């Protein structure tokens, strides 16, 4: 049973064509010239309850537009969206009860007041039952280390502290679905890890569906099971993270630690399915394609010539794969 269903979704914008020079600005003022752009072009997907979905794409690919339509902030030009049985743009306020959202660095907290005041108001806004609120607050405080932050004014918090509070505020009312638009932007590695851990734990505990857009692919790597890749308003990939890597990831790198190795292994080993790209006295680096061979085959081959002590595998990183895809897409 899918919690989010998107069918033939389309969003077109009219934007004013900018003209150069002061004269151009005046011309715009009197008779603006419009140009139509299609931000989201006929996309379809379904998301099941409890899924962790990475919604990725370059700037301007249509990610934020999609999220805005899913949250009911924008009305689609055509197509259908159903989120937990509700059409978000028709019953926006009702939909808001089911969802949580973080948009980049915009804060939903009250700037001049201690964090806890914002939490209390959120409790009232969403009519969170007292025991539920207490339980969540305690749980979130533990995972996100908020203890010392709760009594501090929001404006005095660092970016990382603020985002931790922001995330807590977003999950406070047990939303069924959470949209996170660039939640880790500008944060240091420890805070990022903390936030990822939080998302995973809450997802496990409450089956919260999370849709995450980010430019930090480590977020996706760490958190998401599924990837939807958007390019110029269209979905170009939708599937599991692993099969994404399998389909697009060209190479896997393996590093073998060996002993009693002949001086030059390259001379002896001949294979079309893998390639030795670097070798030293006790180390061999191998590049191979997942579909063409397996590490077992490679080890069999190599062990004919030396003893393998240890092995490190490194899969092609998402980032590398994406770069390849984008390059390809632009060539079209």
């Amino acid at each position: 049973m899918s919690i989010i269903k998107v069918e033939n979704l389309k969003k077109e914008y009219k934007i004013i064509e900018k003209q150069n020079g002061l004269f151009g600005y005046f011309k715009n003022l009197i008779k603006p010239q419009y140009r139509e752009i299609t931000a989201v072009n006929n996309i379809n997907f379904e998301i099941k309850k409890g899924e962790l979905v990475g919604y990725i794409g370059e700037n301007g690919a249509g990610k934020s537009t999609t999220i805005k339509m899913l949250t009911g902030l924008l009305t689609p030009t055509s197509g259908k969206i159903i989120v937990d049985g509700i059409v978000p743009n028709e019953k926006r306020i009702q939909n808001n009860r089911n969802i949580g959202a973080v948009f980049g660095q915009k804060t939903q907290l009250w700037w001049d007041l201690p964090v806890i005041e914002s939490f209390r108001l959120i409790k009232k806004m969403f009519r969170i039952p007292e025991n539920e609120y207490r339980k969540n607050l305690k749980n979130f405080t533990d995972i996100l280390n908020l203890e010392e932050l709760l009594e501090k004014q929001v404006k005095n918090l660092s970016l990382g502290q603020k985002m931790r509070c922001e995330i807590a505020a977003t999950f406070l009312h047990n939303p069924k679905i959470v949209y996170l638009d660039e939640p880790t932007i500008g944060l240091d590695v420890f805070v990022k890890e903390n936030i990822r851990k939080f998302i995973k734990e809450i997802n496990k505990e409450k089956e919260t569906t999370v849709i995450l857009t980010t430019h930090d692919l480590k977020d996706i790597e760490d958190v998401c099971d599924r990837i939807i890749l958007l390019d110029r308003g269209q979905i170009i990939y939708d599937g599991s993270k692993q099969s994404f890597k399998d389909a697009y990831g060209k190479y896997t790198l393996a590093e073998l630690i060996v002993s009693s190795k002949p001086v030059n292994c390259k001379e002896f080993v001949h294979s079309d399915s893998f390639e030795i790209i670097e070798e030293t006295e006790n180390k061999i680096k191998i590049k191979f394609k997942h579909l063409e061979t397996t590490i077992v085959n490679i080890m069999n081959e190599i062990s004919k010539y030396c003893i393998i002590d240890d092995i490190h595998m490194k899969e092609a990183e998402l980032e590398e794969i994406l770069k390849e895809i984008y390059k390809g897409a632009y060539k079209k």
Partner: protein
Amino acid sequence: MKQVLHNISLYLSFLKISLKEILIYRVDCIVGIFSELVVEGVSLIFIFIVFRNTDNLAGWNFQQILLLYGVTRISLGIVGYCFDGLYDIGPKYMRNGDFDKILLRPVHPLVSIIGASKEFVALTDFFIGIGITIYMLIQLAIPITFLLIFKIVFFSIVGALIIGAINTIFSISSFWTYRSNEVIWSFYRIYTFAQYPIDIYNAFIKIIITVILPFAFVAYYPTMEYLGFNKYMIYLSPVVAIVLWIIAIKLWNLALNKYRSTGT
């Protein structure tokens, strides 16, 4: 009805948290109160000067005019504080994109916006209004009965709601311009006419302040009742308030839907 009550209670919570925010800035409060007093003083001096040259305005004497002034101030004080958030929609929420944040809350955006009112110093007006009203009632030898107090309290709130609704209607301009605060403000200025007996104006202005922007129902008709000049018009005020709010919310929602489909 339950939803309305929940909205009102949320509005008060928002107002409370906004008050906490503003009270942090003590100097701002003091400066605000001072400037309110200056504005107040200028208006009063103007009335004094008028009555140095004449002893009545359309049949109203000095004390009666001041009673109207006092009753007006009570409502304006309430509006100035409780509905001030409307001025922020264009220049604040729309300009820096905070409007989306408000749309994601499980309440109507107007509750959030009006609840974020911080012009707590406008209550200076409110208290001066109460002072002048009581003083003039004594001067005019009008007995201050329990019923009269109830009427003044009730119709001052109704009056504030009338202005609040009119300001809400003009706040719709924020969907097209960041300078919506100036639009609201310029129409609100027309209120000045309703601070004096409407018989001193020509038909055009009369129609404006009784029908088009029915400011006359805020304090003018109620004061006429307190003075015994007109016993019935006052009871139209709550009707005017309700009708205006229905129009304001309908139009606001319409504009909001339009805004969401264009996406700016």
